[in-house]
């Protein structure tokens, strides 16, 4: 057992140096606005030019074949430098792992390089109005046609879809099958004929997600991932990634915690708030060390990923609630902390509500019995799968 990071220090130094030279001096506009989206897309191109947009991918697709530890270090440096949010994260964190596991060589070569370069920004299309937490209840269809599929139906809570280029999601390809069966995993362009994108404002009014109305949208066979009808199994590899470290790397919280401690000191280091600030610091550090533990393990962490999801999402809320309380009467005013707070509130809801995660922990990690009935015991309605 050791925490010897000396082998990755040269990589850390390179990343840090590059970021110091390249991170924009002034923050980019919010990526949930049209202007900000364009600026963040351009930033992805800048990152890609330095082969820093997808460090853990193979070189062939724009990465560096970085180890998980190098990726964690990259993330620490990235957020410590105050670099822009990652507008490509849905593609990089959700779609790409699925493609690595189930994609054809042709798909990998066609899809990944433009994703790495920020040329194609991806949105997820999981949830439907009647299928939030209960993803298996989805009803949007993919109908077999010559050379491909026709998509019909409605998707919702599609993060970034207001401005993104393409989307991926699950569709019911066998209308007779129920629940997890008969689903197919497909990719489709958001500017295709038959696609209508209706932006939805989140809590602070910014169009952070959208509804997608699909009316006979044609998708060629080459845009099916994995076998038709096997979409549920294909998607589950993505879900594991979401709940593990990739969705929220420790670096994000370490940097935010440093800012929180600084904010607390700037506002007089109020002893009334000291213990909450200390707890955030301790929890962020615990999350960092847990990350090192996770990448040191050789076994599959499986359902333990749910423990991570509950932890980081509650840490993020606590961190931002503490910041707003430090700001006092100014806490309600527009600004970075308020935007971070609003963003944090989605954490316990999406990618599987924390109620569902706690069921998973109890049943699959602790081995408690399922309810003595057909269905799984789960929590409140919510979307899943947005980034």
């Amino acid at each position: 057992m050791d925490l010897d990071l000396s082998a990755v220090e040269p990589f850390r130094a390179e990343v840090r140096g590059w970021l110091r030279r390249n991170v924009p001096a002034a923050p980019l506009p919010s990526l949930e606005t049209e202007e900000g989206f364009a600026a963040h897309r351009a930033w992805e191109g800048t990152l890609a030019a330095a082969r820093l947009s997808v460090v853990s991918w193979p070189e062939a697709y724009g990465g560096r074949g970085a180890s998980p530890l190098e990726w964690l270090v990259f993330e620490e440096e990235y957020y410590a430098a105050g670099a822009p949010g990652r507008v490509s994260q849905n593609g990089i964190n959700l779609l790409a792992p699925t493609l690595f596991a189930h994609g054809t060589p042709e798909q990998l070569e066609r899809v990944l390089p433009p994703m790495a370069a920020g040329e194609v920004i991806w949105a997820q299309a999981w949830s439907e109005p009647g299928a939030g937490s209960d993803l298996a209840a989805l009803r949007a269809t993919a109908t077999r046609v010559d050379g491909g599929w026709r998509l019909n139906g409605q998707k919702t809570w599609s993060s970034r879809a207001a401005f993104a280029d393409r989307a991926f999601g699950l569709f019911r390809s066998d209308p007779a099958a129920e629940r997890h069966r008969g689903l197919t995993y497909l990719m489709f362009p958001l500017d295709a004929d038959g696609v209508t994108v209706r932006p939805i404002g989140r809590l602070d009014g910014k169009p952070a997600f959208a509804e997608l109305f699909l009316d006979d949208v044609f998708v060629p066979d080459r845009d099916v991932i994995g076998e038709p009808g096997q979409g549920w199994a294909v998607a589950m590899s993505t879900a594991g990634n979401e709940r593990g470290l990739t969705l929220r790397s420790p670096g994000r919280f370490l940097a935010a915690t440093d800012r929180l401690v600084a904010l607390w000191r700037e506002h007089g280091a109020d002893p009334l708030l000291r213990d909450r600030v200390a707890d955030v610091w301790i929890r962020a550090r615990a999350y960092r060390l847990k990350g090192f533990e996770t990448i040191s393990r050789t076994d599959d962490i499986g359902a333990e990923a749910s423990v991570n999801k509950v932890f980081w999402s509650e840490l993020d809320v606590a961190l931002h609630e503490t910041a707003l309380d430090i700001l006092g009467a100014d806490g309600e005013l527009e600004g970075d902390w308020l935007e971070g707070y609003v963003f944090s509130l989605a954490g316990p809801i999406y990618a599987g509500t924390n109620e569902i995660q706690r069921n998973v922990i109890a049943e699959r990690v602790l081995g408690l019995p399922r309810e003595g009935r057909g269905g799984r015991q789960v929590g409140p309605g919510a979307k899943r799968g947005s980034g």
Partner: protein
Amino acid sequence: MKFVLDAEQRLFGETLHKLLTEAGTPALIRRWAAGDPDRTLWSALAEAGVFALAVPERHDGAGPLPVELVVAMHELGRHAVPGPIVETLAAAVLIDTAGDEELSAEWLPRIAAGEAVVSLAPGPRRALDADAADLILLAGDEELWSAAPDGAVLRSLDPARRLFPVAARERLATGPAVPRAAAAAYDLGVLACSAQLLGLGRALLDTTVEYARTRRQFGRPIGEFQAVKHHLADALTGLEFARPLAYGAALSFGSPDFPRDVSAAKVAASDAAYAAARIALQVHGAIGYTDEYDPSLWIRKVRALRSAWGTPAEHRGRVLDACSH
């Protein structure tokens, strides 16, 4: 001792609830947020007697009636009514208590009649809806000033809370009565804001219970799940115990305990309403997180009011300072 509302007080609340239900506040809130401070509802509230509650009879009011004020603000909170209502009520107390007869005669009857929208800056030099107000008050150490907007609007998480930096313009009154009046106005504003928070929290609980009864996931209403039940039971418990603190504070109006009691009410109302808002968001899932879903207006207002009219920490300090003997 009879610590429940009487029939008349209950009827007053029900009347306001009906009036506000018919007014359809969500559309009004969105218009207000967009910069259209329509006064139709303001006049209707005045007609129902809301503003008169803080204005004494000799200036055409019916006040002070702090219990009825809590009843009214609970209903206004329940409907998330926009505008500087708490500010106008507090301003009435400020003007009345400052003791300048001319000022009182000029403004109090107009406040009671709903003809004057008044704002003030209870904490930082920021006033709600300053661009829409007929009068903005700023209380200094021994001086009362009128004020004017002094900068662009500051956007709040609650889009209907349009805050403006303000600067003093004209001196209205001086003397030791001014800080006393400012303190009295502050305490009344805190009480009104507490009641508003309770109404907001109650509305969020009711909406969420209804949603949990009808929204189905995994083949059944999500309200059947024990986790949802326990969340909502906790929200109710918080609100049920915050309410008597607000009414208890109203009944101590005029006593030395009033500042302590309104602070206790504000802490409990803020915590209970905020817990209800977080639970509402969690049970609704993504829909509650959207701008276009009406209850999100309530959720945002709760977070904003939590630190308006004094932060919870400030009020906890006031409570313990007051029981230091």
